[in-house]
């Protein structure tokens, strides 16, 4: 924080009241890239490294021994893996939402968070993408889901939601990755101008020789808005498709038309929650308080509140429809959710996703960074359990009472689930050190004119 004005009355509607000079922006934002990483960062990286070791170790063991090392069985054929898959796909949402949709709607508060959010999106999809592979029985044949001309004259079954998934997730990954990369180009160029040695070489390659000429800015703007327009429908499509993995089945508790909007809302909910979880420490470590202000968190908190209510409504409507349908099997399924063997999971879900966010109605909570951080953790937990409830409780009591059964996650499953967080964290840590965590050029656009003069005066 270079110059902090003591005058709090003049702050007005500025998004970044404490940012006064444009070159402060470059200096502050690029500091994490240039400065020494610091013990904490290394320790966290090491932790994530260990986690990744556990992750691939457990996975390798499962490939070697067979799916039996999981706790899965009949009737519960899907468990922690699919739960975590959906969780990460959900996390992947807010990134593109914030950058693309809010960009199209010109939301004033997106500039300082969208970079982190987009990075999170890309890494989350990278994580999610592993889980379908982890959960198939014969990984070595998983490529059969990809349509390609082959000597068997066989194609995948395009009726199957799982095949739709392949397309949805890969498309979403490609577009969000490109979108993310495009946005960084000017900032990487800025970093390049400051960096030295290997870093400089790296940035030179990544920034594709960006000079910030008018022509480049012109094309950049065009490309960016096109991509934003392209990414926007994907935000809605990808999680709708994921929700159809369930909705297309006939399993009581899965087969519901509300699933697509319900999942999308849930995804945004968890995604924004995760953004808060990630940016709060980031802003602390790299001293970006001036750029990620309570204004941004307030806005994100409101988004959480909105989506939380949508999700809660979805829960309620599910229970209502189960009762209203008069269908005994449907009723049993949802009664079993609340009071059956997995009642605890359901109640964790309801409390974390429905009750806790109610606190966000209060401005004081929304403006307290620590409070938001804690709430966001609750949201992450709650959303993971939401998926667990949907997957497991629906399966373990289905149509055939004689075939009812229980599912107990195994150690391997837990190692892989926890390890996936390490894998995600690993990439995010690298990101914070290698790329500008905040979009410099867009930030400058929203800084008030007088300061521009100052710069010109410079």
């Amino acid at each position, binding site marked *: 924080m270079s110059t902090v004005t003591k005058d709090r009355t003049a702050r007005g509607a500025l998004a970044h009241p404490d940012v006064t000079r444009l070159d402060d922006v470059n200096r502050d934002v690029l500091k994490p890239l240039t400065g020494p990483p610091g013990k904490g960062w290394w320790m966290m990286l090491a932790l994530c490294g260990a986690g990744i070791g556990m992750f691939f170790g457990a996975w390798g063991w499962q490939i070697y021994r067979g799916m039996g090392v999981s706790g899965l069985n009949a009737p519960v054929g899907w468990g922690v893996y699919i739960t975590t898959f959906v969780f990460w796909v959900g996390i992947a949402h807010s990134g593109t939402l914030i950058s693309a949709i809010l960009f199209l709607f010109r939301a004033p508060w997106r500039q300082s968070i969208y970079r982190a959010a987009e990075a999170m999106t890309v890494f989350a999809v990278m994580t999610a993408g592993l889980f379908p592979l982890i959960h198939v029985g014969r990984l070595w044949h998983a*490529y059969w889901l990809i349509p*390609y001309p*082959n*000597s068997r*004259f*066989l194609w995948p079954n395009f009726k199957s939601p799982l095949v739709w998934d392949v397309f949805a997730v890969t498309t979403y990954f490609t577009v969000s990755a490109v979108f993310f990369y495009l946005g960084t180009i000017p900032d990487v160029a800025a970093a390049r101008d400051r960096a030295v040695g290997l870093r400089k070489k790296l940035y030179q390659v990544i920034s*594709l*020789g960006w000079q910030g000429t008018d022509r480049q800015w012109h094309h950049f703007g065009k490309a960016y808005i096109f991509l934003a327009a392209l990414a926007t429908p994907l935000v809605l499509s990808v999680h709708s498709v994921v929700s159809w993995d369930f909705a297309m089945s006939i399993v009581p508790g899965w087969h519901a038309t509300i699933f697509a909007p319900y999942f999308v809302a849930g995804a945004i909910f968890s995604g924004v929650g995760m953004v808060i979880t990630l940016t709060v420490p980031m802003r602390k470590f790299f001293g970006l308080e001036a750029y990620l202000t309570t204004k941004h968190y307030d806005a994100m908190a409101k988004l959480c509140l909105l989506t939380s209510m949508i999700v809660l409504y979805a829960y309620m409507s599910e229970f209502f429809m189960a009762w209203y349908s008069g269908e005994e099997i449907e009723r049993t399924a949802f009664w079993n959710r609340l009071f059956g063997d997995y009642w605890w999971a359901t109640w964790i879900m309801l409390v974390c996703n429905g009750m806790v966010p109610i606190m966000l109605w209060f401005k004081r909570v929304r403006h307290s960074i620590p409070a938001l951080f804690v709430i966001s953790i609750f949201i992450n937990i709650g959303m993971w359990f939401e998926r667990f409830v949907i997957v497991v409780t629906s399966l373990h009591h289905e149509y055939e009472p004689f075939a009812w059964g229980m599912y107990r996650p195994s150690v391997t499953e837990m190692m892989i689930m926890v390890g996936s967080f390490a894998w995600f964290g690993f990439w995010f840590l690298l990101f914070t050190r290698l790329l500008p965590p905040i979009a410099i050029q867009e930030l400058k656009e929203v800084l008030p004119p007088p300061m521009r003069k100052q710069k010109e005066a410079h």
Partner: protein
Amino acid sequence: MRKHWLIGGFAGVLALSGLAFVQGGGAGADSPTTLSDFQPIAFPHDQHAGSEPGQNNMDCQFCHFSAERSVDAGIPSVSTCWGCHQAIPGTNNPQEVAKIKDYLDAGEPIPWVRIYKIADHAHFPHMRHINAGLQCQECHGEVQTMGVLEPQRTGLPAVFLGQDRVWGGDNMGWCIDCHRQPNEDGVQQASTDCSVCHY
């Protein structure tokens, strides 16, 4: 700079299609060159089944006795071999023929090395194909001309094979290719239902 990206992209695409190709093409067992390499007795198919002068022009099913009534074509018993060879010492290399007697006396079966092998999860009823009027050669190649018996693989996946059918035992497209041919009524001549072979 951009060029590099392009090249990289192409390389990736090639690699992928290469993988798919290998998977599809079904690279098979490496085929040896001389009989003594791997067969317990140097059995020349051409000498027995060949129609050249000096060759014996035997019917395949004389030895592969159950081809027209069983799923298995059948491997001749040692006594079958000896049935003829106790009279025919073998002009070209009698020492090989002599081995038959050894096995017979020892009461041991001859451990032939299998050349044509269809995966265990695919069921190939020989009799259905023989009774459909197929010639052995249509699947096994011109065995009567082979001294060293080896599957004639083109190495290409069947999708590129067209009408030219040679052995592709672990290549499903090679089977489908034939099943799909229209019969005289113009409908496909054999079922391509998975469960016809896979169960």
